[in-house]
């Protein structure tokens, strides 16, 4: 029996991944994602979790063909740098019809999708990916 995907590593982060919880520094006010143990900007440990906006704009993007093992089913992988206003994040993009439809400043919104799957019997990881806004 082989289990390649960790149970606890994902479970520990599910709150942050499912809710897109970022961290706001009470000292300098800057927001970062995912939350670190201290503010990466000013070093303060006074940080609190905040839910980030679920809509944003694409600043940059790529279509990935050199994919890691286990990802062939979802290839090509679309990946983007997204401006959520309070902070920027990188996230996989989904529902992209083809690479040409990706444009700078495209409005995108978060939704839950599968990412890594441990073959036939292991865990499925679900994360928030971003897709072109519906309305």
């Amino acid at each position, binding site marked *: 029996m082989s289990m390649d995907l960790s149970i606890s590593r994902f479970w520990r982060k599910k709150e942050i*991944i499912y809710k897109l919880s970022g961290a706001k520094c009470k000292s300098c006010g800057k927001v970062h994602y995912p939350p*670190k143990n201290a503010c990466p900007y000013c070093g303060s440990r006074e940080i609190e979790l905040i839910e980030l906006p679920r809509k944003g704009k694409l600043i*940059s993007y*790529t279509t990935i063909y050199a*994919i*890691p093992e286990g990802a062939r089913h979802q290839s090509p*992988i679309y990946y983007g*740098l997204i401006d959520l206003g309070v902070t920027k994040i990188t996230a*996989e993009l989904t529902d992209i019809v083809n690479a040409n439809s990706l444009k700078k400043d495209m409005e995108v919104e978060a939704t839950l999708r599968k990412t890594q799957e441990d073959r036939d019997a292991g865990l499925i990881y679900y994360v928030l990916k971003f897709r072109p806004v519906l309305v």
Partner: protein
Amino acid sequence: MVVYVEGVGMTKIDRHYDYSLKDLAANAAFAAIEQAGGIDGIDYLVFSSSLSPLQDNQLDTASYLATSLGLRGIKALNVEAGEASGLAAISVAKSLLESHQADKVLVIGAEKLNEFVSSKVYKQLQMLYDGDTKSFYNIGYAGDAAILMRLYMDTYNVDREVMSYWPALMHSNAKENPYAMLNFAIKPDKVAKSQILADPITLLDSYPLGDGAAAIVLSNKDMSTSPIAKISAVESSTGYGSIELSDDPLLFDSLSEAYRRISNIADTSNLDFIEIHDSFTITAMVILETLGLAKRGKAAELVSTGYFSPGGKGPLANPSGGLKARGHPLGATGVYQIAESSLQIANKFPGIKVNNAKKGLVVSLNGLGSSSYVALVEGV
């Protein structure tokens, strides 16, 4: 404090299916030891590798290697800093010498990237980037660099054609380097046409997956016999290593800091050559701009004018062929860079020779700059 390069050794970078990691390490180490005049006085082994625990199924490699090389009983240490492991190892070796915990250090960098099929290696290479949440994605090893490249091209209005001069220059230099993995020339227009890894990064924008080892024998002044070069200063810094965290992602903040630190303790002006970390074309462009060797947004253009080419007005960039064409066996790369620079200074480099080279700057970093190392190599 200055440390002295007594001897260097390198293997050609290639898919060495018939050599193990320790075989490659031994190959490079024995050559370095020979040039340094023998094993007498070597009291420390610093080993740098990034993926060897996964590729080679070996932990505490430095210790097993010490015994394997006939150096049983010497002190040994593994250093890992992702792609910057090699220069990190040099930095540690220098500290050991400066603090007199060692008199003569053998630094070996070795890496194998072909023990598994490429899709498995891409998954391993993804670990070079911030794993907190990115490790749950399927972005492989070029995803973040691709986002940075598009950001650069959009921000500065630089087109694909101009970006292609760097890979062409690297290949042109590597063609003369017998240790290089890809020693053949390419024309710039071939870069855009080659296989897309992560759009806009193509195969010819990216380092190849090669196996290799490089070794250096370093000593402090008292133990130095006939050094071929000296390392005047090594500095480093950690940084965001992330596009999304940085307010200015088109500069590597860790490199800015490392360079500032080294400039405070050494004279980094009038460089004859540089060996920089061009894991991808975009990495090289951002490094050149971070170091101030090119104006913001103008690095690609400057490269295209021949400024950094042999015979150009600027310091020669990557006479070895760089990570792009000489190759990038992750943990070994920084050691290759120091070995090449030392040979360059000593007028012994078997490839492109920099006339009257007295001063070279070596830059190594991991990923998008989670850490950066800068070293100044000079003539004795």
